[in-house]
């Protein structure tokens, strides 16, 4: 599909699951990062079209990572989909304020993931 997706999650298991779900949806150009710092480095060297990030990560939380992306001129336009175990209103408000494009609660299905990606790309 030509979309280069960056998957950010500290859990290797979860990265594999997201990768599987993405492949199921036809997305094959995927790179991985194990935390926000690693992801920011990859964003500086690779041309990424879409970011899927976990919320709960050590050192730099998903929300801090989103804020960091949105503060960098060269990458701030990249759509971000946040994946989380928590679905608390306050978090969602914070995510919206940080300009996260959409939000999925675990566990999700490949269909929901694909649907959200397409929805974000349509609105981008």
């Amino acid at each position: 599909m030509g979309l280069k997706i960056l998957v950010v999650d500290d859990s290797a298991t979860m990265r594999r699951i997201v990768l599987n779900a993405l492949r199921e949806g036809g997305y094959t150009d995927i790179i991985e990062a194990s935390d926000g710092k690693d992801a920011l480095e990859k964003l500086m060297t690779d041309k990424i079209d879409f970011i899927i990030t976990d919320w709960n990560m050590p050192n730099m939380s998903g929300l801090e990572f989103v804020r960091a992306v949105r503060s960098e001129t060269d990458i701030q336009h990249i759509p971000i989909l946040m994946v989380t175990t928590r679905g608390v209103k306050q978090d969602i408000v914070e995510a919206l304020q940080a300009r996260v494009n959409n939000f999925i609660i675990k566990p999700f299905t490949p269909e929901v993931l694909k649907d959200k990606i397409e929805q974000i790309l349509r609105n981008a």
Partner: protein
Amino acid sequence: MNEHEHMDESERVNNQKTPFDFHNLLPIIEDIMLMVHESLKKIPHVTSNLNKVTERYERVTAEILGVVDRLNENIDLFLGELLIISDSLPRRKELQDEIHNTLMDSAGVDATTLLPRLQSLWQEYKSLHPIDEIIQSMLKRIESLQGDSTSITMSLQVQDITAQHMEAINHLIESVHNRLTLILQKFYGAEFQSVIPDSSRKKLSDYIARQSGKVTTHDVLPESEIESQNEIDRMFKEK
């Protein structure tokens, strides 16, 4: 300094060291009360979450076992279909050869003899299991197997969800442990080193070192209401 003054000074120092002095005891009691209060507030929530984790694990395990049963059933049916094709292949090949040879040797043969012979061979060939239908059925089974495999993969998200809940619960246990260690430290003062086991002291220093950026119980086990995916979608639509 005379002896009396010296004794007073010594007594004063001793009194300072005495952990059970009322003035020393009050903040310790306050600490204990605070710890008990915090723990009482969080422990029922943690217990409820542990129960949810157990229930979720049980549900996911049952789901996976159900998918594995379906997967095995589909593999058996797939193998059966493959066997039908495989068993009919030698006769198919024989009939193809016979039809081919009959046609090749047909020069000068009377049509009234040739046609019934060809018809008979062709009927038998057609009566063998229709291979196209079997292949279609096998393709559907492969799709179903792929779906089941994805379903198992997605069910394994429970591992990550559980890991986060466990981390939060572990955080609470660590907090209680370290608060207790700190309280004991205040009680025992200088004797603390000999009273508290090495492992606890190490845990305490590790805990303090790691506290910044660490996931808290509240981070993973929120006390406020969890929104559904539909509610979240609505919030994003309204933005």
